[in-house]
């Protein structure tokens, strides 16, 4: 941790409003993207984004610097996601039903997941396909897949966020990727 980060954390622990604003501005985009990919619903991601930063504000005294501040915030965000999904399950709300169609305007129903070169990666359509498939993954697999392949965290960082050994992270990631590939392949037929 650099001395600048240490000073920033010290200011956060003193509840310095400017330091907190700086923290929110620096982390809001990656955390929002992680929440959105996990939940598949923009409104819910927006609400949870606020809750995550409220929790960061409340719990900052408990940050001991064992992991980076970013990893620590990701852990809080992950826990919030898990709790929210438990709550959603209790309300019998299937994740794929809550997919926010507004985000991928113009998307059509399940075209080929592996498009031919001439139609390769038509942004919104591909994104919609991927998001639906991600939403159908097992929660543990989804977390490591989102953190690794979308948020681009290292194995070590994912270990710290999820709190499981590296071997478990790797095997979950492998299973998540294979399951996602299968879902996309099935959608092709």
């Amino acid at each position, binding site marked *: 941790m650099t001395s600048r980060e240490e000073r920033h954390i010290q200011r956060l622990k003193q*509840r310095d*409003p400017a330091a*907190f*604003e700086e923290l*929110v*501005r620096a982390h*809001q*985009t*990656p955390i*929002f*993207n992680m929440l*959105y*990919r996990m939940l598949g619903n*923009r409104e819910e991601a*927006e609400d949870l*984004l*606020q809750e995550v*930063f*409220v929790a960061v*504000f409340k719990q900052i005294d408990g940050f001991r610097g064992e992991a980076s501040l970013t990893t620590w915030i990701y852990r809080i965000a992950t826990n919030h996601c898990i709790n929210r999904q438990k709550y959603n399950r209790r309300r019998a709300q299937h994740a794929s039903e809550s997919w926010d169609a507004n*985000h991928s305007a113009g998307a059509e129903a399940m075209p080929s*997941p*592996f498009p031919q070169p001439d139609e390769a*990666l038509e*942004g919104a359509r*591909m*994104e919609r396909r*991927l998001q639906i498939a991600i939403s159908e993954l097992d929660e543990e697999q989804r977390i490591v*897949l989102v953190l690794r*392949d*979308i948020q*681009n965290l290292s*194995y070590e960082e994912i270990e710290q966020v999820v709190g499981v050994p590296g071997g478990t992270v*790797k095997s979950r*990631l*492998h299973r998540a*990727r*294979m399951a*996602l*590939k299968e879902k*996309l*392949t099935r959608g092709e037929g």
Partner: protein
Amino acid sequence: MNMDHREAMELFSAYQDGDVTAEERASLEAHLAQCAACAQEWQRFREMVSSLSGLLPITPPVDTVVQVKQKIRRRSAGRFFNTDNSLSTRFGVVSFTLILAFMLGYLLLQAVSEISVFEASAPLDIPPVRDSATDIDIDTDSGRLVDTGRHHTDTEGDAAQRQVK
């Protein structure tokens, strides 16, 4: 080492992340070179991972900072992020009061000094009071009162009138 389809696919994820030994890499690449089915699966796997990392970032709401601060203020019953009690607001109120007091003091001083200067530099130009009145006659032609310019003096007639009174 020869590997079957299942063993090959088990290595896809590690191979993608460069997390395989030299021996595993050589075996997998040899298998993919001779197995069209696994090569196709590998192609799909690679494209899928590439698509995930190529997803465009989504922008959070522009008012996230404001919303979070409001939420904290509400939940802390105004203890944090309360604009009324914030240091900057208190500083602003104190500054305003001081400036106002300074301006009033300045105006007061100005007013006092103006009165002093007026008194010192512009004495009242009051004509001296004449110790006797001038006589006034009636102009018989016009019928108007005319100041004769002559000082009135006490005459015997005046004294006799005072005695009668």
